[in-house]
């Protein structure tokens, strides 16, 4: 059952958001542009089975709630419900300034209330409600006709409704922001009012208490005006009212009314409020050539995603239009994509620093996210290549061992041993200690040096295309030189071999020390203060492969015999001619554990050929020193 609930949270909750319809009776019916609207909604929702219809005010034009206009409005909704053929499962409506019947007495009272909402008490509110009787009447007629079994009829312009859809508990808060209006334009004079706020919080708590374990999934506010239209003091109060966990705790606010303002989302440190607007360019407005907008939201709670489909009317049809939203980069597949809860959607990757307070966090954006699959693919290709290369080494070694040991065909023991080696190399078989000695043929150690070079070369070949085209990348191994307590370059490869200088011998650096002690990759750009060497590389990763026995014990103080450990082998990737993206690539290589990959590949080689890391590196060091002496 629980699993079933989890799966349901992956199902979209669909909200159809209409606003500012401004319906008038025209030739015994409603405006033909609304017929176009119904047709478009029907086509957009053809693949949806359950819809919540939200109407955020201004149903009738200019408060003219006469019988004709009311019938026209009801006819519109009848046609909409009928076209959607039972898909509308719930209806949530709030009044707009055009839903208030306008008369001069009410205007006088309202103008006073705009100055001081405390004036609205008891009977005064009942009087205000009368101005919305037409709106309440339409709402109740629709509830009665289409949702006879659901909540009782409404008697107020604001309130709280619990909706259960697809095993999700949604709480809708209907907020009346229009009661304080008395004209077409009351911007910045409006109030929600303390009386309404207190009542909404009380009803909301009651509603929460009625839900098992208080398990609500989303709280959605609906109001005609966005909160930026309220009196400044009310705007601040509403911010608290909507965002506080112990008040309304809204996740989404659906509004209408506006024609030309940018949308503002509100959030504090614990909570975010996604504000969604629609209805812009009302159907009967003088500027109707702007086009009327309606929206469909597909909310996916498990994915924390809100897909917004906004449609704008043209002369003969509706089209996608997101011009009122500014987030162009969020338009994907003809829809706008937002997180529902912003505070839960700021993931980052940690760029390690040995000093935790200096650890930097890189917040993910779309550029970074699209890089991850390419880098993951490049690392997979690299591992695949290295596995293939190890197989070549095995085949060559096997060939060589056969040639060396098959001199006498009659030697039973050797033949069996070769069989065992074949199985060990190519069929994942076990091998005895005795047979292992055969693996130590004369080239095994010098091959190791070539193998380390292959790691550098193959890694660069696989990752170079992830960077900008001018990049210079170098991958290198250094080995520890006990005599001077420094690190000398062993193998190094670059994508621009001729332009890159050979790695210098360097002393034991703080970056190396940090990488060794933490067992993590240290990225220079995330730890600039750790660097104590002079380098022309703009950014680099320092890795101490976690191979078996990758350390020397060094006596740092002969009098006290104090020991310090030094890694035998270090690895690094450095870049030059860097752009911001390139630093991100290095960060992601680190995030995707390039160190594990390198360590594993080296261990695989050492284990397969039964080689001791320290002994091999000592031998290579001798070759290197010998060459220096020769010079």
């Amino acid at each position: 059952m629980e699993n079933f609930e989890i799966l349901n949270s992956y199902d979209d909750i669909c909200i159809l958001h209409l606003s500012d319809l401004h319906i008038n009776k025209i030739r015994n019916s409603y405006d033909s542009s609304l017929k176009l609207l119904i047709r478009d909604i029907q086509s957009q929702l053809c693949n949806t089975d359950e819809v919540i219809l939200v109407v955020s005010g201004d149903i009738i034009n200019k408060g003219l709630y006469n019988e004709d206009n009311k019938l026209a409005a009801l006819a519109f909704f009848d046609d909409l419900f009928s076209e959607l053929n039972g898909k509308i499962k719930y209806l949530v409506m709030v009044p707009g300034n055009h839903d208030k019947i306008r008369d001069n007495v009410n205007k006088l009272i309202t103008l006073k209330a705009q100055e001081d909402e405390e004036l609205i008490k008891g009977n005064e509110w009942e009087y205000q409600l009368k101005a919305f009787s037409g709106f309440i009447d339409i709402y109740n007629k629709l509830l009665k006709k289409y949702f006879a079994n659901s909540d009782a009829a409404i008697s107020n312009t604001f309130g709280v409704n619990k909706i259960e859809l697809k095993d999700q508990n949604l709480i809708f808060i209907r907020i009346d922001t229009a009661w304080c209006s008395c004209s077409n334009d009351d911007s910045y004079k409006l109030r929600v009012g303390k009386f309404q706020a207190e009542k909404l919080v009380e009803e909301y708590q009651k509603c929460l208490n009625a839900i098992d374990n208080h398990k609500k999934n989303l709280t959605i506010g609906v109001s005609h005006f966005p909160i930026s239209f309220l009196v400044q003091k009310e705007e601040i109060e509403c911010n608290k009212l909507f965002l506080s966990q112990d008040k309304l705790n809204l996740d989404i606010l659906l509004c209408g009314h506006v024609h030309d303002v940018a949308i503002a989302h509100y959030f504090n440190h614990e909570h975010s409020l996604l504000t969604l607007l629609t209805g812009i360019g009302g159907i009967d407005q003088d500027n109707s050539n702007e086009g009327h907008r309606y929206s469909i939201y597909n909310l996916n709670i498990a994915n924390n995603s809100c897909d917004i489909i906004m449609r704008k009317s043209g002369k003969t049809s509706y089209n996608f239009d997101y011009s009122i939203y500014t987030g162009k980069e969020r338009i994907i597949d003809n829809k706008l994509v937002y997180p529902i809860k912003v505070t839960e959607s700021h993931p980052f990757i940690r760029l390690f620093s040995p000093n935790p307070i200096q650890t930097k966090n890189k917040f993910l954006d779309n550029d970074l996210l699209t890089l991850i699959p390419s880098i993951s693919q490049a690392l997979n290709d690299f591992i695949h290549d290295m596995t293939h290369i190890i197989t070549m080494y095995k085949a060559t070694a096997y060939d060589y061992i056969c040639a060396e040991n098959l001199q006498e065909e009659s030697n039973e023991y050797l033949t069996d041993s070769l069989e065992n080696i074949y199985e060990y190399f190519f069929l994942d078989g076990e091998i005895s200690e005795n047979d292992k000695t055969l693996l130590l043929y004369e080239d095994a150690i010098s091959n190791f040096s070539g193998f380390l070079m292959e790691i550098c070369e193959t890694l660069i070949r696989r990752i170079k295309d992830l960077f900008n085209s001018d990049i210079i990348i170098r991958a290198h191994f250094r080995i520890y030189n006990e005599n001077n307590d420094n690190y000398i370059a062993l193998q190094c490869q670059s994508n621009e071999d001729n332009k890159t200088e050979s790695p210098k011998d360097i002393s034991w650096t703080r970056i190396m020390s940090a990488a060794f002690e933490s067992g993590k990759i240290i990225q220079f750009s995330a730890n600039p203060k750790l660097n104590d060497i002079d380098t022309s590389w703009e950014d680099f990763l320092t890795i101490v492969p976690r191979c078996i026995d990758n350390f020397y014990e060094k006596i740092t103080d002969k009098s006290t015999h104090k020991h310090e450990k030094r890694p035998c082998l270090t690895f690094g990737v450095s870049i030059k001619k860097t752009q911001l993206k390139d630093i991100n690539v290095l960060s992601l290589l680190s995030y995707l554990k390039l160190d594990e990959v390198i360590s594993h590949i080296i261990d695989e080689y050492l284990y397969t050929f039964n080689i001791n890391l320290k002994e091999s590196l000592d031998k290579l060091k001798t070759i290197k020193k010998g060459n220096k002496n020769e010079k």
Partner: protein
Amino acid sequence: MRNKNKLVTVKYINPSEIIKLPSDQIVLVSRITLNNARAYSNLQSRESNKEAYAVLLKACHTLYVQDEKMKRPSFGVEMKITDVQKIFGKKLANLPKRSLIVKPKYQLTK
């Protein structure tokens, strides 16, 4: 014992016999041999034998171009005997016995 001959689809030549082949004969030098030479010259100074290093770089470049085409590491690279000699010089005879291959299509008829 699995038939070891199954692995041998090409003719390996003993490096010490390479001198007997015509200088424009093409042989397949195994990736590992070539890499070892490159790794060794990295350990040495690249400056010590510039000509050999240039030939080596070219051979490795060819190897990696092959890799790009095949989308995976290739077994080795075809080189003329003269170039092989430039890289390995006196050390030619010390190469592992099976590091140079004469592919059947290049095998001498005489």
